[in-house]
């Protein structure tokens, strides 16, 4: 799986190319630099990646449907970005740590986060879905770019701890304009931090095209900070996996950070609250449909003689199971207890907040005591 013992990692610096192992029509292109890193991906392994992508795409459509049904407050769809997320997340080791934005549901799924935990936050029922330490994945980040610094700090610590674990920072094309991401590159370079900057360039930051953030490939940003940059076809699960493995291997060997730009596309709206028709045309969407990350793997499997129908059937079945789990999960998510608003603000007692909680407890108590003279509720429901 890690051919680094045999091959020198090399400084994968290909910011101006478009690294690809599977073409949109499913042909396998050879790449002497990348091939050794996915030599273990045989038909079975490729089928598994295909299944992963099918399942997370279903996760996405199901969650979107749940939002339409009023079961979720909001959902930021990942459709179109399956290869970028699955290919990179499947390259991670258990003791690695992922710091993501709000859109990396597939990464969370690969890290073992269950259905209820995936949905909890988007239902508005919890501040976060899972314990980061159980899954090696931080709570997702909404402040654009902030997590890039967290990943870098974690990686600095990993290095000081003499482990060979690595951090990966997921962020979007828009995020590259925020100070935090650029500062993360500075710190990572300065401290040789074992961190992979994984930028999913999905062409859009809400309504803003990537050209507004940068006139040239984002992968070229890295070199100016002394960090190797590589531009990979983000809809090619194999190329993404190879690239991420190389970057992680560099990190583990103490060779520092790598910046990967995965060129992909957000097929859906920014979130369920967004209407992309206001800012982009159907043509563009159609063009990217032709580069579908799942279809090309199926085509490659077919070309390599696999029983694609069976692979697709099994993937579909697993997706069905996951969808069923999801629908069960959503009903299992309990509404939070009113007084839990005060939980975990501090790790240690806090006189002022404890008093505030006491007051609010007493206030709520008036309503319980329905017959009580003091119960206000004069305004009825607000």
């Amino acid at each position, binding site marked *: 799986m890690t051919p680094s013992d045999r091959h020198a990692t090399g400084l994968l610096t290909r910011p101006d190319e478009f690294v690809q192992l599977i073409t949109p029509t499913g042909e396998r292109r050879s790449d002497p630099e990348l091939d050794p890193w996915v030599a273990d991906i045989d038909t079975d392994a490729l089928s598994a990646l295909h299944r992963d992508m099918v399942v997370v795409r279903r996760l996405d459509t199901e969650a979107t449907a749940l939002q339409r049904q009023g079961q979720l*407050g*909001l959902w930021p769809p990942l459709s179109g970005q399956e290869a970028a997320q699955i290919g990179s997340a499947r390259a991670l080791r258990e003791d690695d740590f992922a710091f993501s934005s*709000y859109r990396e549901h597939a990464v969370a799924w690969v890290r073992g986060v269950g259905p209820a935990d995936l949905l909890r*936050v*988007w*239902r*508005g*029922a*919890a*501040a976060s879905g899972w314990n980061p330490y159980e899954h090696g994945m931080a709570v997702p980040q*909404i*402040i*654009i770019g902030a997590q890039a610094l967290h990943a870098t700090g974690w990686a600095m610590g990993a290095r000081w701890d003499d482990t060979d674990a690595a951090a990966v920072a997921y962020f979007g094309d*828009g*995020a590259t*304009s*925020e*100070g*935090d991401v650029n500062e993360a590159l500075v710190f990572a370079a300065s401290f040789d931090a074992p961190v992979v900057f994984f930028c999913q360039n999905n062409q859009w*930051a*809400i*309504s*803003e095209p990537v050209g*507004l*953030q940068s006139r040239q490939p984002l992968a070229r940003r890295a070199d100016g900070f002394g960090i190797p940059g590589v531009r990979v076809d983000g809809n090619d699960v194999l190329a993404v996996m190879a690239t991420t493995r190389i970057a992680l291997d560099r990190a583990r060997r103490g060779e520092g950070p790598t910046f990967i730009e995965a060129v992909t596309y957000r097929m859906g709206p920014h979130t369920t*609250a967004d209407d992309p028709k*206001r*800012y982009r045309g159907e043509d563009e969407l159609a063009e990217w449909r032709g580069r579908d990350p799942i279809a090309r793997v199926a085509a490659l499997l077919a070309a390599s003689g696999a029983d694609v129908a069976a692979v697709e059937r099994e993937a579909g079945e697993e997706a069905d199971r996951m969808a069923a789990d999801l629908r069960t999960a959503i009903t299992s998510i309990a*509404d*939070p207890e*009113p*007084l*839990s*608003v*005060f939980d975990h*603000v501090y790790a240690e007692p806090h006189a*002022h*907040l404890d008093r*505030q*909680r*006491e*007051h*609010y407890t*007493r*206030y*709520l*108590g*008036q309503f319980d005591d329905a017959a009580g*003279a*003091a119960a*206000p*509720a*004069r*305004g009825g429901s*607000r």
Partner: protein
Amino acid sequence: MTTLTLGGALNAGLRRSLAGDDKVVLLGEDIGTLGGVFRITDGLKAEFGAHRVVDTPLSEAGIVGTAVGLAYRGYRPVVEIQFDGFIYPGFDQIVAQVAKLHYRSHGNVRMPITIRVPFGGGIGAAEHHSESPEAYFAHTAGLRVVACSDAADAYVMIQQAIASDDPVLFFEPKRRYHVKGEVDETASLADAKPMGVASVVASGTDVTLVTYGALVQTARDAATAAREDGVSIEVIDLRSLSPMDLSTVAASVRRTGRLVITHEAGQQVGLGAEIAASITERCFEFLEAAPVRITGHDIPYPPAKLERHHLPDLDRILDGVDRVLGRPNSLSGVEA
């Protein structure tokens, strides 16, 4: 008079400012082609062009910092911060630059920058989308801070903010964007109530209730509910948070002897503290009870399903009214 939503009134006000002064430019994320995530700038890019309504790269420090440079050149930049919780990456440029440059330059360089911030909760949003950061800015010398609460004020105040030679943090009550009101689009700005003056939006004699932004409507509702209960509440919409029109509040408290303040932001070192302290200084002899603050808890903004247990609402406000009146309330019997 035209009937407009609060959001529509802002759009109309921005349009009038853009039309009236070439040097007015709008900067922000998604404000051009999309017209803003709340559509407040809808249609303005088409009407005024991409150099007047500018989609910027994704960086709040970048937006505010370039606005400073534009102001240096004589522009009047109007910045949109997409949601309240995204203002912090621009905080340094706001408090160390925008707020200070007129002072530092001995008045030579003006910073007529308006920073629009949709603020507050109650819309069931994800985290960082429901914050009330106004206290940070009201504590910052060199800034003006205002909050509108209805369509008529929104229309006028946004134009006043843009016309002001000082930087203005302009807070918009996002959960009221869709509430309609009557707007006089023909009236001249010169005749309008100045931005710095508070409004008595309901008269009363027993208790003065001060608030701003989205809670103005809630406070009015509380006054209505209390009237049935025999309590007469005077509701004041502060409108300007820095400076505050304390004369109007003090005049009311001198009559009522009782003050309740409500805001969504946390209590500790919030606007309520300033109002309570300032009014106590001015009206000590007139106060029948300590001013009462009904605020968001001092917690990070909670998940959507819990926000109703965080935000002040009609019942919590009335509980505060009971408290200031010495009637039985949630704190009865709690040691001070």
